[in-house]
Every structure is written in structure tokens, then in C-alpha cells.
């Protein structure tokens, strides 16, 4: 019997093996928080499968055994009820629920414990229609779209919103919490493995909701340290490799700086672009290539409906090449 119980979730996982992307699925947890939640999911699922099996068994027995057969016209005995049975099916569910409720309450409190420790990293995540801002108060760093974290380190996250409610979800690392205007929510997570984890907004926040994706990039703590230092210290003169990039910087300073910051300077109406050259995706979801970057800058609303970035159809091809060169050169790691 015991053996059977353990088998059930296993069967389920086998069923699901190969389903979903590793860095996206909640069924393939990559960190302690997601793992704890997955354990609860398995526990609850096990209990639910027991319930389903019992109900289905009685059900099938009843409808087969007591079906009306041709010519049968007997009047069944009009039973009123049965006290003992009633007690049984009241008490057993209560016991089953206790098995779920107790660990759940414990986990609920564990997941709510957000305390800074010596080597924990704090990140303030501010959600905007339809992009993400990550501030590292301990490092004086602001990043956009890509959330860099050190592996094996407790990451304490503060969630805020600048306009409507959003929700911060990185299924492979941790369940979600909402970014609510006027309220600060907290959560924590940890990533043991280096990698890129897909994150997304899960609260309907307007037209661009479905594309409000971001990435969590876990790197080893040393790399992270370098990243954070460079993010904080790079100032305006990013090493410009080509003169084209210098031209590009001019275009950028004319058009874009009011909304986008690079190296500490510029507005914050759009994502910080200090490390844009290291993005894997543009605007959270577009493959990183010149064409997509150009298209997005010219017609952001066509690429990402609802996007609040201003469109720049007037930028010439030449300017665009320079601009992209410049954006490409914005790197902080090596």
C-alpha cells in the first residue's frame, strides 16, 4: 500500500516527462522554492488521485451492477440512509485534508520568510506596462528585462508596480507574487544551477500582457559580482569599438536617452540599456538580431502590441545601423 502511494506521483512525472521547456515548467523545478512547491503539488495530487480512485471505483461498480436490465420492473427498496456510512465519508476526507493542510501551512510561512542575511542579494522588481525593471539597492544598479542573480545565493525580492497590477512568475524557480501599486510584496528564491530561466507576467495588465516576458539569468557569484560592479561603474564612455558606434551614440542621445538610461544616465520610462548588448532577446521575447532590433525601434507596437515605447519610423537605415552598432556594444561582462 505504502509502495503504491509513492508510485502515484512517480507515474505522473513519467507521464509528464519531456513535456514543457526545462527553464519554464513548474513541473521541472530548478530551485528550492519551486521544489518545495512541487513537493506540495505532488502531495496534493497524490491525495486527489486517491479520492478519484475511490470515487470512480464505487461509481463504476454502482452503474454496472445496478443498471436497469431489459424487462426489469422491480421497485427498489426505499433506503433512508446509513449513519455509519455517513460518518465514514465525513471523517476520512477530514483526515486526508489534514495531511495536506499541515505541510501547506508550514510552507506558507517558510515562503513568507524574507530576511536579509550576510550574503543574500536584494532586488527590487518594479513592473511596468509591459516591461520589468530590476534594481539592486546594495550595488546601486538598475537593470532592465534581464534579472541577473548569483547561483546558490538567497535572492530576496521586493515587488512593486508603477501602473497596474502585474505578477512576477519564474515557474522553474518559484511561484508568483503580485506587483501591486501602492503595496510592496516580498518573496525569495534561489537557483542552484547556472542558466537562463524564463519569467513572465501573470496578471492581466493590458494589451501587451501576453508578451510581458523577462529572463532570470543565474551566473556564478563571481561573475555576478563583476556584472554588478560593471553595471554600477560603466559611465557614458563605453569603449566604442567603431566610429559607427559613436555615431549611433549620437542618434541615441538625441532620441532615446529621455526614456532609456545607459550607464547611469538617462530617463527611466523604458528599460535600462546599459547591458543591452548581452540580451538574448529583445523586449523580452524577440530573437536578438539586427532586423528585430531595427523593427522594434521603428514600429514597437507592431512587434509588441500595446508597447508604450515611442515609434521611430523616421530613423534612416544608416542611422539605424549606427544605432544598432552602438546598442550592440553595450556590454558589461568582458
Amino acid at each position, binding site marked *: 500500500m505504502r509502495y503504491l502511494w509513492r508510485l502515484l506521483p512517480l507515474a505522473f512525472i513519467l507521464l509528464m516527462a519531456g513535456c514543457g521547456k526545462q527553464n519554464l515548467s513548474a513541473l521541472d523545478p530548478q530551485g528550492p522554492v519551486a521544489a518545495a512547491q512541487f513537493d506540495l503539488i505532488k502531495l496534493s495530487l497524490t491525495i486527489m488521485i486517491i479520492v478519484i480512485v475511490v470515487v470512480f471505483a464505487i461509481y463504476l461498480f454502482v452503474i454496472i451492477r445496478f443498471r436497469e436490465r431489459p424487462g426489469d420492473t422491480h421497485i*427498489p427498496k426505499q433506503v433512508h*440512509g446509513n449513519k455509519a456510512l455517513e460518518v465514514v465519508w*465525513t471523517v476520512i*476526507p477530514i483526515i486526508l485534508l489534514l495531511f495536506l493542510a499541515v505541510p501547506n501551512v508550514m510552507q506558507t*510561512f517558510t515562503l513568507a520568510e524574507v530576511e536579509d542575511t550576510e550574503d543574500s542579494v536584494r532586488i527590487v522588481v518594479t513592473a511596468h506596462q509591459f516591461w520589468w525593471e530590476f534594481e539592486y539597492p546594495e550595488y546601486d544598479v538598475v537593470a532592465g528585462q534581464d534579472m541577473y542573480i548569483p547561483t546558490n545565493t538567497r535572492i530576496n525580492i521586493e515587488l512593486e508596480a508603477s501602473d497596474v497590477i502585474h505578477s512576477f512568475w519564474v515557474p522553474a524557480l518559484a511561484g508568483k507574487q503580485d506587483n501591486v501599486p*501602492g503595496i510592496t510584496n516580498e518573496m525569495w528564491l534561489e537557483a542552484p544551477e547556472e542558466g537562463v530561466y524564463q519569467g513572465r507576467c501573470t496578471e492581466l495588465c493590458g494589451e501587451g500582457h501576453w508578451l510581458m516576458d523577462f529572463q532570470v539569468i543565474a551566473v556564478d557569484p563571481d561573475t555576478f559580482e563583476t556584472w554588478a560592479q560593471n553595471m554600477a561603474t560603466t559611465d557614458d564612455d563605453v569603449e566604442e569599438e567603431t566610429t559607427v558606434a559613436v555615431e549611433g551614440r549620437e542618434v541615441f542621445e538625441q532620441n532615446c536617452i529621455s526614456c532609456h538610461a545607459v550607464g547611469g544616465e538617462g530617463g527611466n520610462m523604458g528599460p535600462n540599456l546599459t547591458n543591452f548588448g548581452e540580451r538574448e532577446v529583445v523586449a523580452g521575447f524577440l530573437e536578438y538580431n539586427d532586423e528585430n532590433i531595427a523593427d522594434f525601434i521603428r514600429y514597437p507596437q507592431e512587434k509588441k502590441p500595446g508597447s508604450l515605447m515611442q515609434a521611430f519610423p523616421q530613423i534612416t537605415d544608416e542611422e539605424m545601423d549606427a544605432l544598432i552598432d552602438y546598442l550592440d556594444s553595450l556590454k558589461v561582462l568582458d
Partner: protein
Amino acid sequence: MSNTNAQTKSVVWDWLTTVDHKKIGIMYLVAGAFFFALGGFEAILMRIQLMFPEATFLPAQTFNELLTMHGTTMIFLAAMPILFGLMNYIVPLQIGARDVAFPFLNSLGFWLFLFGGILLNLSWFFGGAPDAGWTAYVPLSSEYSGTGIDYYVLGLQISGAGTLIGGINFLVTIINMRAPGMSMMRMPLFTWSTFVASTLILFAFPALTIGLLLLMLERIFGATYFAVASGGNVVIWQHLFWIFGHPEVYILILPAFGIFSEIIATFSKKRLFGYSAMVFATLLIGFLGFMVWAHHMFTVGMGPIANSIFAVATMAIAVPTGIKIFNWLFTMWGGRIQFTTANLFALGFIPSFVMGGVTGIMLATSAANYQFHDTYFVVAHFHYVIIGGVVLGIFGGAFYWWPRMFGYRLNETLGKIFFWMFLFGFHLTFFVQHFLGLMGMPRRVASYLPGQGLDEMNLISTIGAFLMGVAFIIFVVNIFVSMKNKETSGDPWDGRTLEWTIPSPTPEYNFAQTPLVRDVDALWYEKYEGEGSMKAAEPLGDIHMPNGSILPVIISLGLFIASFGFIYHDDGWTWVAIVGLVITFGSMFVRSIKEDHGYHIPVDEIKKGGK
């Protein structure tokens, strides 16, 4: 005053002014079915868009409008009104009454619902439908959305008022107008569940009324309850919405439970197993339903104590629900189960609903809910309970009571094809959505990206939705092709309860003589243990009937007109609001000063009709 007005009125006028609970019931059914088709159509459009990744069948904005209107339409304008239709028609018959307690208000409730529903749907033509989800979370719905939300607010406010009136009406009817001998503990379960659902309406809808009022004042008159910049708080809306919203889902499911209790007992040819436990469980579900609303808000940041309390309270609902499930199973145990279409729906319900119910308990696991919340897992859960529970209940009830309501039986063969296709399509659509959610697909997304392992299951889901659509069309066809099968017997299923004691078609006064009830399942008792037919509790005499009135239509119309004045009040339309309100309050005034004592149907006529 007591004139027998036998004037022949035009058919349309007759329906517009009727206060007969049976006609009002039928109007609810027709309007509800229309909105069901509309909401289903909207669902099909969404499923087409989600069939393939990055599809461009619908713009994101339109998708958001569709999902909002689909949810709102299905809950407020389809499921609830259809249930109201069945309650209206059946409950007075089940308790041996000639009408509901307030026939005039009954009619008013219907027209308010209808005009509210029309208003909501007109938004499609005037600047776009609401787009913030059926839950209309602020500040998206208060500061970041267009006029669609105004239609949502006012449409729901008006139809909600109708629902509240209906709820009070059922309560008073059930408490005060039961036939002699029909004690509370002899009432059929459908009546009981109507009673509890009406209580939930009575206490849940006011919270929605206030929520909508605040949202309206905020949007139209600049109030700042939710505006963070002026010290407002956006979580207030969520509480108000869910204090209403969670009981609402039990308002939907309890009547369906009632329907299944009737069907299962009838077609097992057995008395309901554990009647008093069933009643008690219904009451308990109703009560607990009010104490768990915050399980929709686990991720909003209330804190771990609050989350834990609401999680455990939510799980507790499994117990009374389980009691009901097992009582149904044991009603069938030892019975003689007939597989009529109506009963097929009940039999399809049990496994489907249990699957949806247990995922509800999984969702209630607060720490795990952080993974489930706002994903397709939730979508799968609630369609399993709503379609596997409420919608199957509605169709089961339709097949069961059709001969009573319309005087003919629906075709069984077509009915069974419909059932199997619908059930199969339903599981196909929604089973895979559990996995979609866990694999990282949020709900309310206008599309998804390829290469994330979500493609195949979305395609499967859409195919299932098409099957449901085709099945529904078969049902509609069935309605028309079956019309010729006139049902002459008033008791086609060997029924157990009072509604089957009446000849078919149902006379407008229901019972020539109020029946005397001697046991649960009054008719069954008389048929198999008593004297074969119902005893009468009163001598044959004139029957008092209420007069019809057009005022309900006018009152509702006034509010409908006033709504436009509010919505466009910035454009100088305030006078429209005033005109509308004058119409409404004016006709209420007329109603209150005009005494109307109805008329009597003389004995002779009853003798003719009741032969």
C-alpha cells in the same frame, strides 16, 4: 375589482406584461440560452486564436475583450439566468404553490436582468467591450481602460439588482408558500438548493453592488478609493469582488446539485440516500462559501497568517461536498438505474465534477497556489466544475423537465449523441489545460510563443471546443425536431415530486386544489404507499390570480436609458440620466399608488381545464 379579464391580448403584449412564474421562467431560459450561445461563440473565437502559437486571427485587444465578455456573459447572463429559469418554473410547482410570493417583482427581476445584459453587450458597438477580465481588477479597470468598463459596471449593476430581487422572491416563496404538510424537511432537494442559493444571492450581491458603485463613482465622478496617488488601495476592489465572487460560484453549483439530486433519485427509482445529510451539507457549503473568498488572492500579499486561514477554510468545503457525492452514489446503490439522457448528464457529472473539485483543493493549497494562480491550471479547474457541474446540470435539468415546461419530450437518440459529444469535447478541451498551466502558460494571454512545448495541447484544446460547439448545435436541432412528440402524460418519468402531479400542459394556476403533502417525495409516496394520487388540502374554489403589468419593462428601460447618461456624462449627456431615472422612479411611483388586486378564475373554468 375581481373581474375575469378574458380580453384577448396580443401574444407579444402578453409576454411583455406577464407575471406568471412559468412564463417568466421560460423567458429566462430563452434569454439565457441566447447568451450561452453568445458566450460560447466568444469562447470558440478565443480558442481559434489560441489554436496555433503567435496566431494573428484576433488582435490582443480584441482577445482581452472577448475573454472578459465570455466570462461575464457566461456567469451572469447565461448560467445564472438559465438556473433562474428552471427555479422559476419548477420551485413553485415543487412546493405546491400557485405562484411566487411577488409575481410583479419576479417580472421586474427578469427585465432588469435582460436590459442589463443587453446594455453590457452593446459595448461592442460603442467604443469596445470591457477588457479587464470578468474580475475587472483595478487600477486596470479604473484608470487604464476605456468606456467598455462603464458598460460592464452599469450592465452588471442593473442585472445584479434583478438577481437580488429574484433571490428574495424565491426565499419568501419557499418560506411562506409551501403546501400544507410540506415542512422544510420534506422539500425536494432542488427547492432546498434554490433556497440556499437564494440566501447566498441575498448576502453576496450587496458586496458586488458596492464594488460596482465604487468603481462607477471612481470612473465617472473622480472618487479615489482605488487611486493609489490619492491614498486609495487597489486590494479593496479584490475583496469586494470576491466576497461576492466566491459565493457566486456556489450560487451556480448548488442549484445544479439540486437538479442532480432529483434526476438521480428519479432514475434510480430510489429515495435520495441520506436526505437530511444532503440538506445539512448544502447549508454548510453555503455558509463556508462566505468564509473562503480570499483564496483568490493568495498572491496579492495579505500575509502568511491570512493565507493559511483561508487555505484551511477552503479545504473544509471538500467535506460537505464529499458527503453529497457519496450520498448520490449510494442513492444509485441498490437502485434500478435508467440511462435516460437526463440521467446520463447526472452520471457524467459525478466523475467530471469530482475531478474539478479536487483540483480546487489543490488550488486551495496556498503555497502551491503561487504556482497555479492565474495559469491555465485555474482555467481547467473552473471549467471542470462549471461545465462538469453547472452546465451538465442545466442540460440534465432541461431534458428532465422539458416535458413539464414545454409539453413534449426531447428526442433521446439525438440527446445521447449530444451528451457524448459534449462530454468528450469538454474533457478534450480542458483536461490538457491543467498541464498547459503547470508548464508555464498564464491565463488571459492573447497568444503564446512557439517552442515552449505548448503548441500541441492548445491545438487539442481547440478541437475539443469545436466538438462542444457542434454538440450544442445538435441540442438546438433536437429542440425543433422533437416538437411533434406531444407529451400527454403529466408524469413521463414516474416522478417523485409535486411538479409531476399536474396535467400537461401546466394550467396557469398550477394546482386546481392545493395538494396535501404527507412525506418527502410526496407523489411517490401516494403512488406506492398512499392512495395512488395526491390528496387535496382545500376544496375546489375560485382561484385568485395577479394581473399582468407592463411597468417592470418600463422601470428596467428607464435604468437602461439612464445608464447612457452616466456613461457619456462628460459629453453633456447628464440629462439622459435624469430622464431615465424619472422614467424608473415615476413608474415605481405609479406602481405604489395604484392598487391592483388581481382577478379570480371561477371554479367552472378550473373544472374544465383540470379534467
